[in-house]
């Protein structure tokens, strides 16, 4: 099983190299920028796919965790502390190498946090928020869970828009490059390092894919699938359901924060659109298209849809496209488009256009809607009203 995992990731990396070569050799190297960004967004989608498909939990606020990562990195690496360099804490951090001086945008040196400690803070903060929010939120089900996560996302969004220190509606710009390995790997958006950045992003994506596929086939993954299959039975076997749901939530928040932090360095800034509810809904739409619980499906859907969106193919209909995708997937193929049964869907359509004479009360159509219905199919029976 492990061999096939490595093989898939090998093929994925080979494809990434091929795309890079073709793009550069055909003079379309500029496409790598959008591909790099898509790769970072895909990290978020992978985490969400794990959460929705395996732990069976929806999150309509995942852009919030991306934004916690991005905003923390942006704020720490741009807030100038040089005026307070005499304060003991600042001085000590400065000596420890946590703070670095660099040339400011308006001349003169500024004293800011080095990107590495900022990155670690960003990830830790996102994990901490996910942990604290997750404890109460993950006890909820169905539309209560959906609304609660939506609420959390909205609160994070209004904090970003309403806080002057975070740039309010303008966001934070002038975020410095991030030297992952000084002199070798630099996360920045300028053309000379475009190819390196492409490989950083896709390398990270491949690594995340490997780790998550390992997880799925481990004891924890088995427990998660068991929770999804029959929560009662899982807990009767000694699976601590709440803990595993929370662990998955935190893991997905960490992935989102890593993506948020690095993409913010790549873009040299972040704005409140990254934390909007629409963004969160978009991640959910992507995971839904790829199929709940299919990591490779989520990856394929995310890379292609994000790339098309970033290249502007959807024009001013960008949000509408994702809204439409969401409805279409939920109506016709809640298991993702890979599970789409085209012939069955057409037959069902015909049946409905010409309904049977006897009004059959409430037929059980759920089974026909495709297997692997995942998080969405499961609760039908629980909605006792």
């Amino acid at each position, binding site marked *: 099983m*492990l061999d096939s995992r490595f093989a898939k990731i090998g093929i994925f990396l080979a494809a990434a190299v091929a795309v890079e070569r073709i793009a550069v050799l055909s003079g379309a190297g500029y496409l790598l920028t959008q591909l790099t960004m898509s790769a970072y967004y895909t990290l978020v989608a992978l985490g969400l796919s794990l959460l929705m498909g395996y732990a069976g939990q929806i999150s309509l606020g995942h852009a919030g965790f991306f934004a916690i990562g991005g905003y923390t990195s942006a704020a720490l690496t741009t807030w100038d502390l040089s005026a307070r360099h005499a304060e003991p804490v600042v001085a000590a951090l400065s000596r420890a190498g946590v703070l670095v001086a660099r040339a400011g945008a308006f001349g003169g040196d500024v004293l800011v946090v080095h990107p590495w400690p900022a990155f670690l803070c960003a990830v830790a903060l996102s994990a901490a928020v996910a942990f604290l929010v997750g404890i109460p939120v993950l006890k909820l089900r169905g539309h209560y869970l959906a609304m609660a996560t939506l609420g959390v996302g909205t609160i994070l969004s209004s904090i970003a828009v309403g806080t002057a220190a975070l740039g309010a509606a303008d966001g934070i710009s002038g975020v410095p490059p991030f030297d992952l390995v000084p002199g070798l790997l630099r996360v920045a958006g300028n053309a000379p390092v475009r190819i390196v950045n492409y490989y950083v992003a896709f390398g990270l994506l491949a690594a995340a894919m490997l*780790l*998550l596929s*390992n*997880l799925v086939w*481990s*004891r*924890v*993954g*088995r*427990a998660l*699938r*068991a929770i*999804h*299959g*029959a929560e*009662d*039975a*899982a*807990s*009767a*076997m*000694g*699976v*601590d*359901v709440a803990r595993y749901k929370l*662990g998955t939530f935190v*893991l997905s928040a960490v992935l989102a924060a890593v993506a948020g932090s690095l993409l913010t360095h790549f873009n040299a800034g972040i704005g409140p659109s990254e934390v909007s509810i629409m963004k969160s809904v978009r991640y959910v739409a992507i995971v839904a298209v790829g199929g709940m619980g299919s990591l490779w499906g989520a990856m394929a859907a995310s890379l292609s849809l994000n790339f098309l969106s970033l290249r502007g193919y959807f024009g001013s209909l960008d949000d509408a496209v994702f809204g439409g995708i969401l409805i279409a997937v939920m109506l016709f193929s809640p298991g993702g488009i890979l599970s789409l049964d085209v012939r069955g869907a057409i037959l069902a359509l015909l049946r409905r256009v010409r309904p049977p004479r006897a009004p059959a009360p409430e037929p059980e159509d759920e089974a026909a809607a495709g*297997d*692997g219905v995942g998080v969405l199919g499961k609760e039908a029976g629980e909605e006792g009203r």
Partner: protein
Amino acid sequence: MALLEVSGISKRFGGVAAVQDVSFRVEPGMIKAIIGPNGAGKTTLFNLVSGFVPPDKGSVRLGGESIQGRRPHEVAARGLTRTFQHIKLFAGMTALENVMVGRHLRARSGFLSGMLHLPWARREDAAVRERAVEVMDLLGIAALAPLEATALSYGQQRAVELARALASDPRIVLLDEPAAGLNMRETRELAKLVSKIRDRGVTVLLVEHDMSLVMGISDEVLVLSYGEKIAEAAPREVQSDPEVVRIYLGDDGC
């Protein structure tokens, strides 16, 4: 000392007293059966004991330790596992994987070691797999291992559920109507299996409707009616108890 000791346990749902002041003990190594007409509160009693439903009153002690207010997974960790009246296998997983989840408690690997695929986690998982196969072999269902669990026949699903409950080597296993939906032959096989489990040192508490199964294998029988304990004795005595005959056996036409 009794392995399981239930004293004065009560539970009301709305205005209905589902279980009322029931006490009983299960000694190590015995097969004990709880019988009673439909709606007598048997399944509720199971849910109370296994931590799925908190009792209004009364206490449950497992091996001398109170498991009052413990969640199901904590109860399981203390050596009590169960099956369900309506089979609850994990959909989308093979029979073997189902049984491996049953072995969850006997392994440690967490998120990090799982993601990193660490050697010790791999060895641990191999051991879990090996033990799961052993248990399935014991119940004579090793051949079902690679099949999708929820696609199996009803009797096979019952057996997989039983294997899953036994995989963690529990001290006591609670079987909720294990013969429900089984035919005569399957029921006879089940009776043999339950005795076999007990012979391997696992105490068994079962809720059952099928009188032939209960009377044949149980050491003690407890009779519930309308949430109250009516009788508790050896099978032969229970069968001749006039009260039991009146409220239960008479109605059921056995």
